[in-house]
C-alpha cells in the first residue's frame, strides 16, 4: 500500500507491504541506514528513532501507521559537519566501541533529556514531584532500553551528563 513518511523533514512516497516495520521502511525503502537493526524485538534499542519528538522502537511499529508523523533519525539530528550536542559529546567522551548501538543511544538520549526537562519522573526518582535531575542513576535507569554489547556504558553516561550539564549552565 502507499504511504508517505516524513523523515527528517523530507517526504518519502513509499509503496509498502503492510508488514513493513518503520525500521525496515527507514533503512530499506528510504535508504537511511543510520538507524540500526539489532534484536528486531524491542529489547535492544538500536532502532530507536523519534516520532513527533518521542523516542520509540522503530522495529515494533508498522510503517503504514506513521503517515503524517514527524520522524527523526540519527541523520536528522546532525551531520558530520554539524554534530548535535550529544553526537559531539559521544565523540568527546569516547561513548562507544563498535558503534552499532550508538545511533539508537543518541536518539534515545536526545528524547530522554527532553523527558527530564518536562519533569517526567523515573523508577529511581525519590519523589514523583521532581525535580527530575540527570544524575548517573537517573540516566542509567532512563537509558535501560538501550543495550551496548561492548559495554561502553560509563562513557555513554558521561556523554549524556556532559550535554545535560551544558544545558543547565545555559539555563
Amino acid at each position, binding site marked *: *500500500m502507499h504511504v508517505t513518511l516524513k523523515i527528517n523533514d523530507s517526504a518519502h512516497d513509499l509503496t509498502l*507491504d*503492510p*508488514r513493513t*516495520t518503520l525500521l525496515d521502511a527507514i533503512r530499506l525503502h528510504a535508504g537511511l541506514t543510520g538507524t540500526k537493526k539489532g534484536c*528486531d*524485538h*524491542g529489547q535492544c*534499542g538500536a532502532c*530507536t528513532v523519534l516520532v513527533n519528538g*518521542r*523516542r*520509540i*522502537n522503530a522495529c*515494533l*511499529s*508498522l510503517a*503504514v*501507521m506513521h503517515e503524517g508523523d514527524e520522524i527523526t533519525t540519527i541523520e536528522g539530528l546532525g551531520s558530520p559537519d554539524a554534530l548535535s550536542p550529544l553526537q559531539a559529546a559521544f565523540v568527546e567522551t569516547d561513548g562507544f566501541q563498535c558503534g552499532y548501538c550508538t545511533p539508537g543511544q543518541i536518539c*534515545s538520549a536526545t*528524547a*530522554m533529556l527532553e*523527558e527530564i526537562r*518536562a*519533569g*517526567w*519522573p*523515573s*523508577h529511581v*526518582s525519590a519523589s*514523583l*514531584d521532581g525535580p527530575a535531575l540527570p544524575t548517573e542513576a537517573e540516566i*542509567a*535507569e*532512563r*537509558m*535501560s*532500553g*538501550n543495550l551496548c554489547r561492548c559495554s561502553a556504558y560509563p562513557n555513554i553516561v558521561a556523554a549524556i551528563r556532559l550535554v545535560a550539564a551544558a544545558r543547565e549552565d545555559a539555563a
Partner: protein
Amino acid sequence: MTPFEYIRAGSCDEALAAAGAPGSAFIAGGTNLLDLMKHEVMTPARLVDISRLDLAGIAPTDAGTGAGTGAGTGAGLRIGALVPNSELAADPLVRRRWPLLSRALLAGASGQLRNKATTGGNLLQRTRCYYFYDTAMPCNKRQPGSGCAAREGFNRIHAILGASDACIATHPSDMAVALRALSAEVELLAPGGGRRQVPLAGFYRLPGETPQIETVLEPGEMIAAVLLPPPEGDRQIYRKVRDRASYAFALVSVAACLRMEAGRIAAAALAFGGLAPMPWRSAKVEAALIGEAPSPALFDHAADLLLAEARGQGHNDFKIPLARRTLAAVLAEACSEEMPA
C-alpha cells in the same frame, strides 16, 4: 509475519464494524502484538488500527458515576484506552493522587516502550512464558490441547497461584497490578453500540481448561477507558522484585494502597504481580489486616493467608518465600510513621 489486511479506523464505530470480521485484531501501540506476529504466535488476518481514535484523554470524574465532571470535583479518573504508559505515569493528577499507578508504570518496560504502549494494550498484553513464544513447543494457550511444556520444563518465571494443569503462565503487566489494588474498572465498547463496565477483578479469567481465553472480552469488543475510583488510601507503594534493576518483568511485585487511623490499619488494598495468571488480590488477606495494629506477626499472618494454596512448579519454588518477604517489607514500609502520606 503472515500477511494481513490493514485498516485504519476513523472512528470507534468504524473500528468496531471493521473488527467484526473473523481473525481481526485491534492494533494501537503494537509493542507486544507486533512482536508476537513476528514470532507467528499471533497471526491476525486483519489489523484494525485504532491508534488515531479520540481515546487518549485523562480526565477527572465524579465519584461513583464515572461521568465527566466538566468543572468537577475530580474524585475519580477516566483514563482513555490510548493514553501512552509514559504520559499516564507523568500525569500530574495521577502522580499526586494515585502515585501507585505512576510507580507501577515506571517500573515496567523501557522509555521507548512506555511511549508507544497504551493503557488498553497494557491490560491485554500476553504472557512472556518462553513456551508460549516458541512455536516449536506445545502450549495450551497458543494451541489449545497441545499440552504445557512449562510444567516439566523451565518454569522459573511461572505461577504459584491460580494456575491449572493446562497452563502455569503469569500475567506480565505491572500497570494492571496497580489498577487491581486501586479497584479500577474497564469500559468496553461492543459492535452495534453496546457499552459496559467491568471491574478489573472480573475482567481477567483464570486458565482452567481454556488458557487461550484470558479475559471476558467478547469477540469484537474494544477497551475504551479505564476508570479509577477515589483512592482508598494515601499510603501507596509499588515494590517490584526482578532479575535486574531495570527493564525486566517482575518475579514478584506488590501493590499496596493503605490508610492508617490511630495506629491501626483502617483500609488495605493489596495486589500481587508475578505470582498468578492475573493480577492477584485476596479479600482474606485484606480482612485480616484491617482494624489491626501493624506488627511483624500480623504481616506474617497475612502472608500465610496469601500463600495458603501456593504451589511451586520446581524452578519457581523460590517465589513462595520471596512473596512472603516482599509483602512483609511493603507492609512494614506502608505502615511506618515515616511513610509520607
